[in-house]
């Protein structure tokens, strides 16, 4: 099922008189091709769940449209949309066995008991919980509960599968394993899936398309790798990547990018104050390099090593450079010099925080307007 989200907006009116209304989602536009796994990514409170609930029909939009294939479902009731929803904390019915939980949507469709049981078993097999069918939810581990929730969402063969941070309650190991499983199930069934998470690594690893949100506004849509390599603005660059990108206060002067007093690169952009973002893997050690960092300490991680350094223009307390472990660094050096891989360095206008793009007019009006509304303090720290 193809999903088209057009100008979708959700405003929660304020509870107190004169209080500010919450703009949970604002003017969202997304086209989701059939059979894709889409990740909604953003920090807590940015409107991910609200978007999902509007897609499911549990929340009605303030304005805008939701279209499934060619049918406008904006006002259609939840039960008529043919969606499966996995809640953030699963919401399994505690008084029903796993089998009854999974069969519940089928019972509501008045499907015969035997057929319902057979289909419940199929769904349970898909998520590998066929041995647990007679247990109650409180007799299951978090990971097993999560799979029951997925089975319950899948059993009615939904057109769209919606998952709200389904992995947030799992431990690191299980989370890794289960996200692979979700990917596998999604591939096997070919169901268009929207997956909410605030964990960028999770989103990067399993999504076909990633939507990065901030304060209800979509910041960027695209393939995960593409967004990582080509972020639209400072927020997106900052949000993606572990360890996170290093950001320096800098300026463009006479065709050169300066961080502090050092010209680290040449550029064709006009003179202006900028933020310079450099990915940790974007440094090349070179005794005659253009960029000098004060070394704090060096962490050796096997495959590679991190130079943890300090720079007065950095917006964060420390700067992290990841280099190959076979690159020899001078013993006990207090300063190291680096060259910077040009495709790992991004320039952002210091005021609008919008990316300066090569050979392209800046989409000043639209994006600047969007970004200006948000306080900038939470992006560095």
């Amino acid at each position: 099922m193809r999903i088209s989200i057009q100008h979708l907006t959700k405003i929660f009116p304020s509870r107190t008189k004169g209080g500010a209304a919450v703009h949970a989602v604002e003017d969202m536009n997304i086209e989701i091709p059939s059979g894709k796994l889409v990740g909604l990514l953003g920090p807590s409170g940015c409107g991910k769940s609200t978007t999902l609930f509007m897609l499911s029909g549990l929340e009605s939009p303030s304005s805008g449209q939701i279209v499934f294939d060619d049918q406008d479902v904006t006002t259609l009731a939840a039960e008529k949309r043919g969606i499966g929803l996995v809640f953030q904390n699963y919401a399994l019915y505690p008084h029903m066995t796993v089998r009854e939980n999974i069969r519940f949507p089928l019972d509501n469709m008045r499907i015969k008991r035997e057929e319902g049981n057979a289909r419940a078993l199929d769904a349970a097999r898909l998520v590998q919980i066929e041995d647990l069918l007679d247990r109650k939810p409180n007799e299951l581990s978090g990971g097993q509960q999560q799979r029951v929730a997925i089975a319950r969402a899948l059993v009615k063969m939904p057109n769209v599968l919606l998952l709200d941070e389904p992995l947030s309650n799992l431990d690191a190991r299980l989370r890794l394993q289960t996200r692979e499983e979700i990917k596998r199930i999604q591939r096997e069934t070919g169901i268009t899936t929207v997956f909410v998470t605030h964990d960028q690594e999770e989103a990067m690893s399993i999504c076909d398309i990633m939507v990065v949100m901030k304060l209800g506004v979509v910041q960027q849509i695209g393939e995960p790798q593409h967004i990582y390599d080509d972020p639209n603005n400072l927020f997106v660059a900052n949000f993606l990547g572990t360890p996170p990108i290093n950001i320096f206060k800098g300026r463009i002067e006479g065709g050169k990018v300066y961080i502090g007093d050092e010209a680290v690169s040449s550029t064709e952009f006009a003179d202006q104050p900028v933020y310079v973002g450099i990915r940790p893997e974007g440094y090349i050690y070179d005794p005659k390099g253009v960029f000098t960092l004060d070394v704090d300490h060096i962490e050796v991680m096997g495959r590679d090593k991190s130079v943890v350094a300090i720079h007065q223009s950095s917006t964060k307390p420390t700067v992290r450079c990841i280099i190959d472990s076979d690159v020899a660094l001078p013993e006990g050096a207090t300063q190291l010099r680096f060259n910077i891989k040009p495709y790992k360095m991004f320039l952002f206008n210091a005021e609008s925080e919008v990316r300066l793009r090569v050979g392209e007019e800046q989409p000043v009006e639209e994006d600047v307007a969007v970004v200006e509304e948000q306080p900038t303090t939470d992006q560095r720290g």
Partner: protein
Amino acid sequence: MSFKNKNPRDVEADLVLSDGPQLTRGEKFRRGLRAQSGWLFVAPALILMAVFTFYPIIMAFIHAFQEDYNGANGTYSGWGFSNFVHVVKGDLNRGGADFLQCLVNTLIFTFISVPVSTLLALLISVALNSIKAVQKAYQTILFLPYLTNALAMGAVFATFFTVVGTKSHTETVGIVNLVLGLKDNPINWTDVLSSPKWELGRITIPWANYIVLMVYEVWSGLPFKILILFSALQSINKQYYDAAKVDGASRWTTLWHITAPMVSPQISYLLVTGIMGGMKQYSAVVGIFGEKMGLRYEMGTMVGYIYNYIGEDKYAGLAFAGSLILFVIIMIITWINNKVTKKRTTYR
């Protein structure tokens, strides 16, 4: 630190320590005393219970088996089961109340009014829970009867149903007759003599009177039940309802398959306490039908029966025997209740 790294002497020291230090006799005694000191704290309650609960129970038990026990001077002619025989045979010469009639009445009142009242309370609570705006006002109105005296309420309730005046000249037919359109041919709901009856051998069922009492029972039982169920409903996570909606459950399905099971501990609590209370029904019947619970205990309850005889010196033995039977019946019902609810109740 692992066991292996330990010096053997340390290990030995650990083992001795884990055995606990040797105690002197005095210490042992003091420790033993301290372990028993809990009794000191429950002693006041225990003494009060012994005087006001255990002693009467034991005495009732003893008197029940004393033949011709006289409440005035405490004499009796011997030991035996004659009190129980009189109770069961329904010896109408002795005072006028028939135990079998009272037993049947009590069982019917209880096992109809308690489930109906609980079901109604559930429906009302669910409705209340879904109308956010008027919750407060409704809560107050529905809770009022809970705060009102049962006798007074019964008396007021009776006026709704009572016909005042003679057949040829009625002064008022009561609001219920008016609403039912029986203005010209009113039923006197609270009058046992003129109530339409079914006769089943020894037992009379004045069904118009029954209806009055059960309406009263259901109505007066609602507030407390609504209070309990309403607060239980409010603690249900909203996400279960969202899940049910996505799963395509109708309102009805949601009520029976989601809501009711989620409040089943409260429902079973209400059924158990309601039934126990119903078995001890007394004051409302007196409030509506007078001290004799009808003319001759046609609307009598078991507690009414006991109360009737406890005051009669010559027949006090019947009261003790009756109360023992009531005790056993309540025990059996409680036991069945426990069996059933354990199976049917979902605990979260």
